[in-house]
């Protein structure tokens, strides 16, 4: 059984270095197995799940108590995390359509204290004719029947976030340093080095931005076109940005169940 859903391109557009398109997934076995085989493994990261003994071990030697921490770490992950599935869906989509690789793409990456820096939802590597680049992405899910939905606008909106990732050197620097430790002494190290080098030598512009909007509404080019043009005014060559609206054949709220093979 194929794990590739059949897709329809509802609309497409470009403005300078920004391109966008609306993609519809057809329901059926292809989509089901896509979710249960490809997306689910990214959500249910067994390797990264509750492996906290290493982190808890030795805490006693610091003279700090570990009871509350152990309780938190040993608790189950919250069940309903449709946004996490949305991110996993976006990762799979970008891997398949753009060849983006995720050096550290598991459950652990989603653990991010809210008090901490915003960073980017997705951090990966992508290659072009000159070698590797960083792929940084923001993911939003929305069932709102307005076009574009609220999640695309405002301070917490996708456009602002993409702009921040590309323009805030502090955030980009943090990401770069953090990602180094994910890649060093792994097969990703050479790609990382190339991407870092290109980024720093291009005044932080050699980077690929992705915005993925997960939708369970009817496709409408207004979801992306206005925002795409707005971003085009902000980013500078050679930065490129691609916006995708992924239209589900099911409700977003049903994704957790669908991923585990449950009925819609």
């Amino acid at each position, binding site marked *: 059984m194929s794990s590739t859903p059949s897709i329809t391109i509802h609309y497409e557009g470009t403005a300078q270095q920004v391109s966008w398109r609306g993609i519809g997934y057809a329901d059926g076995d292809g989509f089901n197995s896509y979710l249960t085989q490809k997306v689910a493994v990214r959500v249910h990261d067994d390797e990264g799940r509750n492996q906290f003994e290493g982190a808890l071990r030795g805490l006693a030697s*610091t003279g700090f108590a570990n009871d509350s921490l152990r309780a938190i770490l040993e608790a189950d*992950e919250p069940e309903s995390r449709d946004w996490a599935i949305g991110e996993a869906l976006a990762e799979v989509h970008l891997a398949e359509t753009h060849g983006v690789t995720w050096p550290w793409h598991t459950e652990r990456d989603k653990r991010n204290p809210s008090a901490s*820096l915003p960073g980017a939802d997705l951090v990966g590597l992508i290659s072009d004719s000159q070698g590797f680049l960083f792929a940084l992405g923001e993911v939003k899910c929305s069932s709102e029947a307005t076009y574009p939905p609220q999640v695309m606008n405002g301070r917490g909106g996708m456009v602002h976030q993409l702009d921040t990732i590309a323009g805030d*050197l502090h955030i980009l620097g943090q990401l*770069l*340093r953090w990602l180094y430790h994910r890649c060093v002494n792994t097969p990703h190290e050479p790609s990382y*080095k190339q991407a870092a080098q290109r980024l720093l030598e291009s*005044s932080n512009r050699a980077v690929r931005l992705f915005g993925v909007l997960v939708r369970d509404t009817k496709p409408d080019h207004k979801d992306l076109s206005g925002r795409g043009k707005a971003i085009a005014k902000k980013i500078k060559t050679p930065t490129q940005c691609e916006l995708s609206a992924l239209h589900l054949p099911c409700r977003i709220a049903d994704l957790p169940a669908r991923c585990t093979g449950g009925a819609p």
Partner: protein
Amino acid sequence: MSHWLLDGISEARAECIASANAGHLHRQLGGEAPALDESKWRRCIEALELAVTDLSLHPQPGDDKHEQMLREAASDAFRLLRNLPIQIDELAAGQHVLRAACLAVIGDRGADAARWLKTGGWPTLSLESSDWRVRTWASIIDVWLRLIRKNGWTDRDAVLERIATLRQSQSAFETEHLRTVSPVESKAAALELIGLYHLAKAAEILALYVTDGRVDGKFQIHQLLDTHFDRVAAATGEARLLELEPLARLLGLCAHQLADNCIWTVTRAVNSRVTTFVKNLVDRGRGDKAIFDVLPPQRRSLAEKGLLGSSRRAVVVSLPTSSGKTLIAEFRALQALNQFDHERGWVAYLAPTRTLVNQIARRLRSDLEPIGVVVEQVSPALEVDNIEIELLTKGDRKSEFRILVTTPEKLDLMLRQGWEAKINRPLTLVIVDEAHNIQSETRGLKLEMLLATINSECERAQFLLLTPFISNAAEVARWLGGQNADDISMAVEWQPNDRAIGIAHVVKGAAMAKRSHDYHITFEAVHTSKATLASNKHISWPKIPAIAPTFSKAKGSPANVAAMAAHALARRGPVIVMHMRPDFVWSLADLLKKGSDQIPATSPSKQLVQDFLRLEYGASFPLIDLVARGIGVHHAGLTDDVRTLMEWLFEREELRFLVATTTIAQGVNFPVSGVVLASHQYPDGNRTRDMSPEDFWNIAGRAGRIGQGDLGVIALAAEDQAKSDKLRAFINHQSGALNSALVALAIAAESQLDNLESIVYSKPEWSIFVQYLAHTYRQMGMPETFADDIEQVLRNTYGFGKLRAERPDLANRLLGGVHSYAAFLQRPGQPLKLVDSTGFSLQSVKTAMIAAGELGVNSSSWNRDQLFASNDRSLQSMMGVLLRVPELRENLNSVLGGQTPDGQKLALIVKDWVNGQSMQQIATTYFMKEGKTELDAMTDCGRQLSGRLTQTTAWGLGALLSFTAGDVDDEHMAQLRNLPSRVFYGVNNDDAIALRLLGVPRMAAISMTSGDRPLRGSTPDLRQQLRSMDEAAWVRACRNQDGATYRKIWRVLEGLD
């Protein structure tokens, strides 16, 4: 060597660093800092930090270039980060400062970071926040910044206290905090806290290790740290902790570097004496005197290059100024003492000047006496008097000296007089401070010959030569140690603080009335070979009308420019202002006084010095008023005591200016904020010569480290364009390889090299060389084959090898001359022994013997009670003899300004001096000249007395005594042996000599020993007595109220207060 990240940003990096340097310069010196390209800076910082991480994760042991690249990247990242605007959010701001400080430590700029944190502090952190995350982060940032700042024990104690408090508060805050975090974020929050707790523990470990050298009985600091940093990595690996993880990785590198810099790590497992010493350094009270860390050059020398574990016989440590060479020497001395403990070996510490001998002896005494190492100094007088005999030979295992501080000249004479045998313990290590003096035209050869002699005659002797950076340290080391030698050099890659060297000159301004023009001073920081800060944008300093009202007046002399530059720099901290000659120095001090618009507040220290000046020089001495205005003066026309007091006031920042002759470059051993040179030259007879690059960088190296900020500024004053150009060339004159003075001497002597027998009559500087030949001949048992052996003897010198390499023609000529000289030595009946006992050449000994016969100087001339009496003529005859000795003639003649030899006048001056006349009285009686002021006379008198007459006469009398009083009995001889020292110290009894040796000012020493109950005792006893006497006891001993002043002054001079 290249690196994937650094190569691509090299251009941007150079631009950013240049702009950071210029910005730093302008912020410190006034003027607007150039705008910075923040986005380029941030990119550079990211690349540099990434490179640091990458280089440290891919180490290449033994590859110095790899390490240097890492350190430079870290140091540059620090340089940029500390100049970037800090975020508003307190944790982000704290993280920024901590990141910068960590990079500084990794880049071997830890001392800079500490100063930066001490002066600028860091943003207020909510250590009491009710938000547990904020509170924990705040505490972690705070403790790590304190570990880097290391403000004595206070910071160390605060680290332990903060961590204890954090632990205590955990139960009250943590659960509540985790409860309020949303469930999806709680795991990340918990993992972040785990990481932070391990950082707290690592900080605690480091704090304990710094002071105790162990933690819970364990010495393996790196393993202990690794345990916790690995666990931070384990925790951060389970979540995306963008703030914690990169910072924790950086802290890990920083912690290991801090541990490596720790004095305990560097000195571990050497020997128990070293351990006790370290404990003592660390335990020095709770002030800021405690030493926890070593500087990078010290770490390099002691640990990485293995100086402490080394059995190398000769080591040359060639490091930049302010690298802490004295501490390196102390460790090496302790090792040598330990190595030859059974034999009770001793160490000779040689310093070039009397002032440095005093300074070093004080420092060593204060550092090493607490651990039971007795440090003594002997005077530079070229005669060992009774007090010194006692000091050198007496004492049991506990009280005998183990380190002797003196000048090369004195040690040379001591060894040639057989003092190693008389001391009856082996000389095990010779430490030569400022060893680059080996190439000094006037004194270099003596030092070289001394080292050559020690090398061939003192069986156990090892060598430690301390020099500013020289490029051929290895060659010098090999000369002394052969294969068993090592050199430890650091050129420009490390300096203790930022420095700017530039030229100050006058710039013409708008037209003023009467065809005159306005002006201002401009400072142009120039590029140099030593990574100093430069800027294309000049800095303007205001004119000072009281010094020069118009442009034409201002450009009239470099002193005007220097005075105004000094005033501009003095806003930042104390400034040394140098000029060539003592009379120029007085005028320059006067200019500075004119430019001062207010009199600073007085202080007990200043008053004390002023009281002392009144006692020494009379109430009208101009320095008294200058001190009140915060201006000190330092030159050879002042006594050693006064010069030391000037340094003392200056170091305490009670003087704004210290105006000194350029010769101070050799004697400054303390940090200054700025240096201004009105002249870059030394007087040389009737000519002038440029300061050597070593001396220039020596003084330049002292600039920085106090006052505002850490930028040391060296300004050279130029009165016009031509001088500007000359100074620019001078600044870039490279200090090169250390040469031997013999080469210059041989070139100057040329044809006279064939005739070494008579060379001393026209070139007395050759005396040392021919004495060396005579000494070696005698030492070898006067072999008939000496002429054949001579080449081997010459090979013991450094100079001959250099001469052969540079001028083989002269080397051959010299060899020929030496062969003839060997035949001369072998003639029967030569008084060779007297060459060693007098320090004269063979020819001079013979000349003096003949003169003594002619002038009737014989054993009956020596009468202790009569020699300095006004009606006795013996001293006059003796001076007549000394005036014929080539080695003494020039100095004695110049006392009276190079007039015709006048033994009678010299004898009268010496008598007045010995009989306790004040400097003022002697000056007005003998040194007043037409058209000159009393101050000129006093300056001249001071220079001639301490610089020439007393030292030369003491040496000459000692020599004369040895060959004209050979037939007196031992008891009588013992009485006479102190006579030269009476001349040296200017006192007329033996008890006073002992007090003078202990540093008691001359007039006080005279008062204390001339009453019914003179102060007496062995040197250690006397020192103890003087230390324990209270004010009333000093007043009683001096027999007047001045005793109170003298007591305080003595305690200052001894380094006790």
